[in-house]
């Protein structure tokens, strides 16, 4: 095992996990919502990007915003349909509905894009940066930069702006926020639109790392869940750190034990954390 290379792989994967998880962090932290369709929305983001590039011949930089717009529309549609259940905080219904949405997205994507695997090629994914015998692609470097920027911007928005304050208010007490004149409905819609945009963006950025299939998305949900819980539910900084920790763990576990069982291993870590520290590693440090 090449330690330096695994370190790089781990950091890249960690930023990728954090990027995929960011939408759900906000979703869970703000609206106490979960989205089991998250993985399929990631799949959709990757496939829309692929379709825009490979079939419509668009440049990568145009394909990304298209994927984001599709993500926003899917997010808004889902939340619009689930609005009643969201107001009632009917988690049982919401969880099952998001599973149903994920299933519909899978069927629709397979019908539209075909069920064969594809390679999402971007101008960045074929060029390498090498330091001696260590290497990563420009796509990997872009993932790291973009993840850091996205987390800093999100942190600033939540902590420093009026929108951030409104969102935190709704997270704290939706009924009180409603009485104080906050349009809770729009906050919920906005949060789900952000979830759709963020995960579609992650699909466009991280998708090029692996072959993409319309049946993928399950591992992404598990990894996202591990990141969100390890980071402390709803904590933005915590998610970022948890993403990187998980990335390093996955890289070294894959290299030393078995790449087939990385999801299983991440899950075992998660169970251990849930049993030992139900609030997550960053509990209380929000």
């Amino acid at each position, binding site marked *: 095992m090449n330690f330096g290379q695994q370190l790089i792989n781990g950091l890249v994967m960690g930023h990728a996990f954090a990027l995929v998880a960011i939408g759900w962090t906000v979703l869970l932290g703000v609206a106490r919502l979960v989205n*089991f369709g998250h993985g399929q929305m990631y799949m959709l983001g990757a496939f829309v990007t692929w379709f825009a590039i490979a079939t419509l011949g668009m440049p990568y930089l145009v394909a990304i915003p298209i994927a984001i717009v599709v993500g926003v529309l899917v997010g808004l549609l889902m939340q619009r*349909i*689930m609005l009643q259940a969201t107001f009632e905080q009917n988690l*049982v219904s919401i969880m099952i509905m998001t599973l149903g949405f994920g*299933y*519909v997205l899978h069927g629709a994507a397979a019908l539209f894009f075909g069920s064969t695997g594809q390679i999402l090629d971007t101008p960045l994914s074929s060029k390498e940066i090498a330091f001696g015998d260590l290497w990563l692609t420009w796509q990997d470097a872009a993932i790291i930069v973009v993840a850091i920027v996205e987390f800093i911007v999100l942190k600033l928005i939540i902590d420093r702006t009026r929108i951030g304050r409104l969102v935190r208010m709704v997270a704290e007490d939706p009924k009180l926020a409603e009485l104080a004149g906050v349009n809770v409905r729009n906050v919920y819609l906005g949060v789900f639109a952000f979830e759709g945009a963020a995960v579609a963006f992650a699909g466009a950025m991280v998708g090029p790392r692996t072959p993409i299939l319309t049946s993928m998305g399950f591992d992404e949900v598990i990894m996202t869940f591990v990141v969100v819980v390890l980071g402390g539910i709803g904590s933005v900084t915590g998610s970022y750190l948890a993403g990187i920790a998980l990335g390093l763990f996955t890289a070294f576990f894959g290299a030393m034990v078995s790449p087939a069982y990385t*999801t299983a291993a991440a*899950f075992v870590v*998660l169970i251990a954390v849930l049993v030992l520290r139900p609030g997550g590693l960053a509990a209380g440090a929000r």
Partner: protein
Amino acid sequence: MMTRFRYLLVPVLAALLYFAPAIAGGSGAIYSAFVLMAIFAVMAYGLDLIVSDLGEVSLAHTVFFAVGSYTTALLSTRLGAGGWTTLAASLAAALIFAAVLGLMTLRLREFVFSLVTYAIAVVAATVAQNWSFLGGSDGLRGIPPLDMSFLGISLKAGNDREIWPFAFALLCVVLYLVERFRRSRLGSAAIMSHLNPRLAIMSGVDPQAVRLKVFLFSAPLTAAAGWLYAYQRAYVSADILDSYFLILMLTAVVLIGRRVLLGPLLATMLVLSQEKFLSLGGYADKIVLGSVLVATLAFFPGGLIGLFHRLRSALRTRPSISHEATSLDRTV
């Protein structure tokens, strides 16, 4: 009067269902559809108890289904075990799995519980695909025909027509067990700790113990479905952990209405009739099934029964209040 009516109705309905495939033409496709309907309904009843009675969403029930199937496949292909042995082993294996999962998730609630059970299902799928002991991605082939012979009576089933009596019997047993559960002390304790946990604790009910017991009761039901499914398909592979089964189970639980005894059975019949006889193709069927699930919860949270009651009360009350309504309209 009502109960006497019921005593008459149950055998009549059961007989109708038993002879339904023959009445519907008796072709192989018809028997296959009815066998699958019975198997998937039994599978859904296990989850029904968790969702409808306990009020939690377990997404690991596909694992119990797979445990039943894989246990059956392993024992029948490697050790040549017969139907009774594989059934007993499937139920026992499901109990062990349910005990481990139940204890592991005892303190988890709501979405954390669901996420962990979901993760268990995903991990189980990767294990099934990669572990050569379970046949890896090829699965386990060559499961012999079901043989339930005992005391010298030969009871064998090699095709769907012959499996149907067993599927029907399994369905009847499970319906009876679910009905008994809902009338039992455990059943009412489950409902109480679901709807009013404080009251439950004050009445001396331990919600965690109730949860664990319901989990232990529900897992073997779903595993029994997996047991028969292994014989029906004659092979088992990792696709038994496909999300199709999860979505199907959830739809079966919510479509007709919660805590309606025949609800999951009717819902499974509806879904399978669409898939078997009005199929639009695999992926379009996914869209249909997923949309039905979402639409039910979003627009008819009480299920089709709730919709039916709403319609009926609307029709019934309309004539009597029509002139009052007009006067009310004026005041409003």
